[in-house]
């Protein structure tokens, strides 16, 4: 059985499946219980599983994430929601100090099967903290996995994998495309491997690596180009990064463009370019290039179109690199 659902429904279904299959899965966060979440990602779950397993919290990100650690080392699988990624900073103390290093600190005796979900990214006409993409900040923390899906199918499979993963996963949901399109998704639970990129489209001339809400924009850009053969890689997991898939692709194409909406400097794009330089240097026919948001604060709606890489800018950049 399968149904046609969007990304936010895929989140809800993944939670529903796992709560059904595994009693140790509990879900909590701000407004997730009675209200079903501000983006409706947990709608209906409290009715199905009761307020003991899915419940509301105060606006206390530090305690939300910290308490999940205490539960996770004692047999629970907490899935906590941070309402917007920009609200996560009070919890960074817990994430850096405890979440990411508990396995190491206990020399492997304890591990944390917990998930922190957060909608991320711009393009919803909000600004600043409500629109930023700070995945690189978290990917820089050893011991923490960072996953970003771009389709309903991947969302469900990767979230279920994240819940079943013995280690902590930061699961970032591209809120701009939460409801952008629907896809056929199996109703039953299934998993997709964390740490494995997906080749969305095969090509010969240039590799474009991207993730999250930028994937459809890259696809749109590529659909306007018929004289260059573009390979599109959806990274899906920022950390641990699927270096093999990227390197193999660049060894074939000789060219790479990384597209992300986060600010450029010290971003995930820089890491990808470094990997390519280290592992595929002799295959390169053009400088590895990044097309990203700018190194500034995410602007208001009227500046948004200038900030986010658009399909037009992506297509232009692909042509530039191909012609190098």
């Amino acid at each position, binding site marked *: 059985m399968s149904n046609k659902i969007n990304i936010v429904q895929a989140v809800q279904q993944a939670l529903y499946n796992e709560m059904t299959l595994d009693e140790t899965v509990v879900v909590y966060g701000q407004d997730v219980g009675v209200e079903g979440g501000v983006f409706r990602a947990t709608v209906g779950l409290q009715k199905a599983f009761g307020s003991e397993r899915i419940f*509301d919290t105060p606006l206390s990100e530090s305690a939300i994430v910290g308490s999940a650690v205490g539960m996770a080392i004692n047999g629970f699988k907490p899935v906590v929601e941070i309402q917007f990624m920009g609200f996560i900073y009070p919890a960074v103390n817990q994430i850096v100090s405890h979440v990411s290093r508990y396995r190491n600190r206990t020399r492997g005796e304890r591990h944390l099967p917990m998930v922190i979900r957060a909608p991320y990214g711009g393009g919803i006409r909000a600004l600043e*903290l409500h629109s930023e993409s700070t995945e690189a900040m978290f990917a820089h923390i050893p011991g923490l996995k960072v996953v970003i899906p771009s389709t309903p199918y991947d969302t469900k499979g990767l979230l279920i994998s994240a819940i079943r993963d013995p280690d902590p996963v930061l699961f970032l949901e591209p809120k701009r495309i939460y409801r952008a399109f629907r896809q056929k998704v199996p109703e039953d639970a299934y998993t997709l491997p964390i740490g494995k990129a997906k080749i969305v489209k095969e090509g010969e001339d240039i590799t474009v690596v991207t993730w999250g809400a930028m994937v459809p924009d890259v696809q749109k850009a590529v659909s306007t180009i018929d004289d260059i053969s573009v390979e599109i890689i959806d990274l899906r997991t920022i950390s641990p990064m699927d270096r093999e898939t990227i390197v193999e692709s660049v060894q074939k194409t000789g060219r790479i463009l990384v597209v992300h909406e986060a600010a450029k400097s010290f971003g995930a794009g820089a890491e990808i370019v470094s990997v390519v330089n280290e592992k595929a240097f002799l295959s390169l026919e053009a400088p590895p290039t990044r097309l990203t948001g700018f190194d500034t604060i995410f602007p208001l709606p009227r500046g948004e179109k200038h900030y986010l890489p658009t399909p037009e800018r992506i297509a232009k950049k692909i042509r530039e690199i191909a012609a190098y």
Partner: protein
Amino acid sequence: MAEKRIADKYDRDFLLKLLEEMVIIRRVEEKAAQMYGLQKIGGFLHLYIGQEAVAVGSMAALDLKKDYVMTTYRDHAHALVAGMSADALMAEMYGKATGCAKGKGGSMHMFDAENHMLGGHGIVGSHMPLATGVAFKIKYLEEDGVVLCYFGDGAIHQGAFHEALNLAKVWELPIVYIVENNQYGMGTDFRRISAVHDLYKKGCSYDIPGALVNGMDVLEMYEATKEAVARAKEEGIPTLLEARTYRYRGHSMSDPGKYRTREELDEYRKQDPILFLKSDMIHDGLLTEEEYQEIDKKAKKIADDSAEFAENSPDPEPEALYEDIYV
């Protein structure tokens, strides 16, 4: 009930000022809501409608040449009362270059340094240590000022609230913390997620006075704040005021507010802060219905003009992305 209750105590001009400010806030925000509906304003819009008495009453106890205010993202009222023009406010919501923050702050980040309105802040509770620091500067420079730090009932559960109050007490700072308890943290009833329901009692934890104030009554807000301000300035004792209030609209424009009943909303509408003051003034012979209509008409014009000003203002240039930031 005693006759001439407010007329004996307050001067007419003072009461008119309070009334006018509340009506202007309401009309400007209604206009903003309308323009949001027309997608002139993007992102999020958090309205203050219903809570007007809190900002207006408390800020009436200030002298903003010396005093400061700092608040959350529900910040339009505080900006207007501080003296920001409705034009600059509305243009900021539109994201236009003529906005108070050049169209880069938006609804949640009103800022008017000249009028000592040190910002709306988008992250719940995160500004409380900042406000505490402003109070520190006042004390350090031996100025005669005070800081009013506003926040919602949700902020009480952030570490920053507790850290700030503790510091304010230890350093004996001239600051008044005002929790605008509108009873819902987004869609969650504060009673479901707060161990203590009388939020003003949290002052005990830091050995500072706490008091409950009717946040629907502008004069009660004024009196309570005046007392707390005097204590802060003269004795260096911070206060936690809990203004029990109510927002008529959702948390933001995208919130239909299904978590509360129509009856509850109607109950609070009956205690509307504008109607409260208006009827008291009429009762005491300080205002006629015609004069009120005149005030309302003026407020509507200010609101309409602000939208027109915003509409006709230019967008920020793309280059503005790189202005006012270190890169």
